[in-house]
Every structure is written in C-alpha cells, then in structure tokens.
C-alpha cells in the first residue's frame, strides 16, 4: 500500500471558549479539507464500510462524487439510504461502525466518513434541500408513533414508497431525543428542523401534542383506518438510584435537565420562560453520552466545577471516546470507581452534598462488564449543590395503554423481531430504543428502515404468517 496522507482533522471551537457557549463544538470541514479527506478513500472494489452502517449508506459512491465535484451526485447517493444525514454525520458512533470496517483503517487511520457525510449534508442544506420524487400514493396509510430517529426514518422511507404516513408526537416539537436530549452544541436544532422538514416534504404529516396511549390507543389507530402502526417511542423514562435524598431540590434526572435546556431553551431564560437551576458544583452520575451531554450543559450554564461520578473505569464508560475527550478537554472532572450512596440535603430540602463510596472491579456481570464491588469503609462526602442522574432510561409504558397483546420483556422493552420489527401484535411494528433499550440514533434509524421495508412487504402480501422468530 502506498503512503497514505493522515486523516484530516475537523476544526473545533477552542475548549476554553466553547465550555461557556452553546454553539456547535465541531465546525465542519471546508471544501478543501473535504476533498482532501475524500481523496484518501481507496474506492474498494468490495467495500466493507457499507456493512458497518446500520442503514447501508452507499459510502464509496458518495465519496467518489464528492471528490469529483459532483455535489448533487454525492447528496443523491447519501440520501438514497439515509433520510437524516446531517444528523448522522454529527452523532453517529462512526468509530465503531462504518469507519471501524474501513480497509484503510487496518494499517492507517480510517477515512473520516462521518465528517464527509456531514459536509455533504450541510452543503445540501446551504443550497436548499431538494425534494426527491416520491412514488404515487398507494392508498395505504401507516401511523408512526414518535418523531425521533426511528420514527422519522420509517416514515420517510414509507412515504417515498407511496404510503400516507402520519407521525404522532407527544411533545410540541418534532425530533424526539434529537430535540429534547442532544444539546445544541452537539446537534444544532436548526439542523434537526431541516431534516424534519425534509421528511415532511416527502408527504409525511406530523401531529404534535398527541399522546398515543392517552388520546388514542394503538387499537383505535388500527380500527380507524391505519393499515399498520410503527412504535418508535424510544426509551424516555428516567431511572433513579433509589438512594436516600434523591428528591431534594437540586437533584435532576438527566432527562429533565436536558429537556429544560434543549427543548425548552432554559439556557436562554428569562427570554424563554422555562427556568433551570444553575449549579455551582455539579455531580453527574453515569458515564454514557447522556451523562457527557448533561455535564457539558451544566458547565455551559455557568457551573464552577462539574464532576462525573462513575462506578466502573474509563475503559467501561459507555460514552463515545470522542465525547469523553470533549468533556475532559472542557475541564469536566472524572471520578471513576466511585458511586453515590446518599444525597445530602439542607434542612430546607436543598442538595448540599453527595456521599460517595469507592468501588473495585469484580467478576463480569450479565452485561459482560466487570461488576463494581463496593469497598467497605471507603465512604466520603463531596460538596455539591446539584446532582444529575444519568443512569440510563427505559421505554415509557404509556404507548402500551390498553394493549395487553403487545408483549414486553421484564425490562419494559417491547418484544419484536430484530430483522423485521414485527411485534407479537399483528400489524404493529416497533424499532429503536423501545425494543433495544437506550442505544444510538443510527441503530434506531436502522430499525426504522428495516421496519419500513417489512411493512411494505407485509402490506403487499398480508397472507403470510405474522410472527417469525429471529433467524440470526
């Protein structure tokens, strides 16, 4: 193999500056950088990168078009499989997906596929997004519950095939976790709005402020003319630790904290009405992407110190390496092998500290990761005035109201075939975090995409057995 140029870094805001603003951290490639990076692609005859992508983006094809200057060709190749490329280019864990299977990565650094995807998608947004041709209406309609990544992808694909699709969204803005969870500095909301508008331009109707399970049940949707229902309501229920003091003022779930900041724009209070507490010394419990988002938001709101408390070590932290690095660069302090045992409060019910206990790693647990084992007598107190619980989330059971035939696991996720998305209830599909528990945007999109294909296959030929076990 000939000498390969090093991977092109993407310009980013200086850590010291960005730690105090909500503007996007990563600034995107210039055209020159994008072409230089595209030129690193080997254009493999048998590309392996595509198999690393949950939605099977035709990666070499869009990169080739980009370096040949055919930008619309790049857009077409990219969006053929991916309805939301400007989002994926920003939040996908490419290092474990397409880039992990890039041939170049075996000896050198892989092609920066995610950065190129973002460049092409942002270029299209700057030009004005074009609406592709959509198949003529086929007379069938599908209800999609939830406008997050799974729902938007499923809806977009079905609309392209000629289905009349209605998305039901419980919040007042579409996007699900893209809008309430992921902060502005990682995924600007105007990008989400543009991608949502694109899905709407395909003919998808989005009904906001509509809580399925309350306003309609799934059975009512099926009875009222929808040929199929796709559940993409995610995993929106926060978890707490059930330790003493967890309800003191100043203890937030990461969901609440992030929803206030992102969806409600509490960082612009009082221009926006929704308030948020400004912690001076903040402890964030957990080390996933949500924990990093919460910690970095707390810092940007004006905290003097933000501490991540995690019971295992950095090696087991579920957050993307890039997000851990971003948080470290911005001055977030990490306390590994540490877990809270109590939140300490004032007489008036406000957080004044947190009691922590050191851990050591033991035998692997059910998740395959080493189990944290408490070290007796290692307790110590840390002075904080805000605690954010970022311990993971579970599916919200509301969508299952009065539908006992939607079988669920003991974790509250819905039972569904992984390849088709079919649940145990005929004509109801599901995909994304509601099936897998909290995972990634792109895996939810992959599930939405597979379900759309299967909804089409089934509705064209309903005379087939409904439930088939996973073949994998």
């Amino acid at each position, binding site marked *: 193999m000939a000498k390969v140029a090093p991977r092109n870094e993407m310009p980013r805001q200086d850590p010291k500056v960005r730690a105090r603003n909500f503007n996007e951290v990563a600034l995107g490639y210039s055209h020159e950088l994008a072409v230089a990076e595209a030129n690193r692609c080997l254009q493999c005859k048998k590309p392996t990168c595509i198999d690393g992508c949950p939605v099977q983006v035709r990666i070499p094809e869009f990169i080739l078009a980009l370096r040949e200057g055919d930008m619309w060709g790049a857009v077409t190749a990219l969006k053929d499989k991916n309805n939301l490329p400007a989002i994926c280019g920003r939040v996908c864990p490419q290092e474990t997906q397409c880039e992990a299977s890039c041939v170049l990565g075996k000896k050198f650094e892989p092609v920066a596929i995610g950065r190129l995807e973002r460049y092409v998608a942002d270029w299209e947004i700057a030009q004005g997004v074009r609406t592709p041709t959509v198949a003529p209406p086929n007379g069938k309609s599908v209800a999609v519950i939830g406008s997050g990544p799974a729902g938007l992808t499923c809806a977009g694909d079905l609309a392209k095939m000629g289905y009349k699709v209605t998305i039901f969204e419980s*919040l007042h803005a579409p996007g699900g976790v893209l809008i309430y969870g992921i902060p502005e500095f990682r995924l600007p909301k105007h990008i989400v709005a543009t991608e949502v508008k694109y899905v709407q331009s395909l003919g998808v109707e989005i009904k906001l402020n509509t809580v399925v399970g309350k*306003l309609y049940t799934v059975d009512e949707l099926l009875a009222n003319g929808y040929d199929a229902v796709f559940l993409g309501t995610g995993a929106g*229920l926060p978890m707490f630790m059930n330790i003493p003091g967890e309800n003191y*003022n100043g203890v937030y779930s990461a969901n609440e904290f992030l*929803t206030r900041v992102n969806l409600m724009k509490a960082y612009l209070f009082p221009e926006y009405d929704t308030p948020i507490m400004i912690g001076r010394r903040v402890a964030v419990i957990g080390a996933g992407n949500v924990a990093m988002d919460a910690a970095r938001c707390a810092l940007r709101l004006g905290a003097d110190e933000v501490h991540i408390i995690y019971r295992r070590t950095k090696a087991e932290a579920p957050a993307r390496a890039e997000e851990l690095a971003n948080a470290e660069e911005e001055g977030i302090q990490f306390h590994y092998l540490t877990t809270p045992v109590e939140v300490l409060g004032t007489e008036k*019910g406000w957080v004044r500290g947190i009691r922590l206990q050191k851990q050591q790693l033991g035998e692997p647990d059910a998740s395959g990761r080493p189990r944290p084992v408490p070290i007796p007598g290692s307790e110590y107190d840390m002075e904080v005035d805000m605690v954010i619980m970022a311990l993971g989330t579970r599916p919200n059971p*509301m969508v299952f109201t009065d539908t006992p035939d939607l079988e669920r696991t003991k974790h509250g996720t819905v039972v569904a075939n992984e390849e088709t998305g079919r649940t145990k209830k005929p004509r109801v599909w599901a995909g994304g975090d509601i099936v897998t528990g909290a995972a990634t945007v792109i895996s939810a999109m992959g599930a939405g995409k597979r379900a759309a294909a299967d909804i089409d296959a089934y509705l064209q030929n309903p005379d087939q057995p409904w439930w088939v076990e996973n073949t994998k």
Partner: protein
Amino acid sequence: MYRITAKEVLAPVTKLFKVYAPEVARKAKAGQFVIVRVDEKGERIPLTIADYDRESGELTIVFQEVGKTTKQLGKMNVGDELASLTGPLGRPTEIENYGTVICVGGGVGIAPIYPIARDLRAAGNTVISIIGARNKELLFWEEKMRSVSDELIVCTDDGSYARKALVTEPLKEVLESGRKIDIVWAIGPAIMMKFCSLTTKPFGVKTIVSLNSIMVDGTGMCGACRVEVGGKTRFVCVDGPEFDGHEVDWNLLLERQRIYLEQEKRALEKFEREHQQACPCEEVG
C-alpha cells in the same frame, strides 16, 4: 390551533377559558389535566381539566394568575390561540358508588372538584361539598357546585361571604356529626390539601388529593413532578395526579414547589416591566 372560544373572569385573578380541542375533549375525564404552552417561548404548565363538552369539542380550564405564564395567559382573549395543549394526561378519578362522599374545593381547586362531584353524584353517591376561598371575591361556581351536590357548605377565610371558616372546619364537623362518610376528595392549594388530610386522618376516612407539582412534559419522561407517597417516589404526571392524602409527604411537596421561586420572581418582574412599557396609558404625559 387551540383557539380560545370563551373567557370568563371568575375572580380578579381567576380566569376561565374554553378552548377548542375536540380530540382532547372527546377523551377527557374528571381528574385529568392538560399541559399548556402560551407561546413559542413559553414554559409547559399543567392545568387541571375543569370541564369538557364532547359535543362542542371544548375543554374548560380554570387558572389563577400567580406567575408570569398564568398572568400572560390571563391577558389572552377569545379568538386567541394557545401555542400548544396536550392531554388528557394523568389517571382519571376513580368514579364508583362509594356511598357518601365529601368533595372539598379550595380557591381555584373548586374548578377541578366540580366534574368529580358531578360524576360521583351521577354514579349514585350522596355528595356533600365544601367550597371555600380567602374572600368573597375569590369564590366562584357556588351555584354550579350546588347543582351537583346533595349538600353544599360555603365558607370564606375572612368571613366576607357565607361562613367565616377554613374548609377544614366544616369538614371536621361533618366527620364528627356521626354520619358515615366513605371517602373524601380535597383539591386546592397544597397547604389546604395537607390540612384536609390531617383533619380526616383521625377519623380513618380515605382522602384523595390532586397534587399540583412542577412538570415539564407531563408524560413521565422528566421526573420533575416526583413526590413521595407511602415512602415511595411517584410521578404525579403518570401515577397521579390523585393520591391518598394520608400517604403524601407534604413537606417534600411544598419544598419542591419552591425550587424556582427566585426565577419565577425574575420572570414576573420582567413581564410586568415589559407590559407596563407596552401600555399606552404610560405614554400619556
């Protein structure tokens, strides 16, 4: 999208709106609430459903102007539209034939107690209602409550109308009278519900209260509304809003209602400053 079709000033700071929301009105039940946003920069506030009309598709909400958002809401008029209205949320009241029930409504809590009293009576209960407010001006829906009650007791804190008493006094008297009371509903400010619960406790009469905690989404995803009931953390939005008042940790609820007092004050001052500037009478002279 969510048009205000009627407005009534029940008291200087208490307003009633009817809002056109046919799908919500179709499903709404006594005891449930909606989440409302006034405008695009607005916060999401929970308001209990005071009534609904499945025919006309209207939903009735009653609110007291206490902060920036409710004051802004109070300035809206017929024909104006709310930025959003989501519901019906929360569990409905469990309407059954219990026997004899007492329905206590305090202040703005008279509005949500009305459909509960109405439905309990329709289910065959003997309904004794007690309504009260700080003064005559703040009292409303006396006749409406009378129409759905077998007996109605009216009181004001200052004695400016009807009997001078807190609602807990007639509540205690009815319980002491020896009549068999099967269950009590009490809705109003948290402090009133707390004292109603304390009043009924020695009599061993189950008391249902409707908690008014701070919320964001109202669908169980944030946990802002968490309370402790019977020593367990519960979410008011999905596990409530109605709970057994004898099991509620009232001090925690009251503390949690104060989280944003400082910010609420700032927002209100800003709003009032801006509203004054916009008021044409200020420009004269």
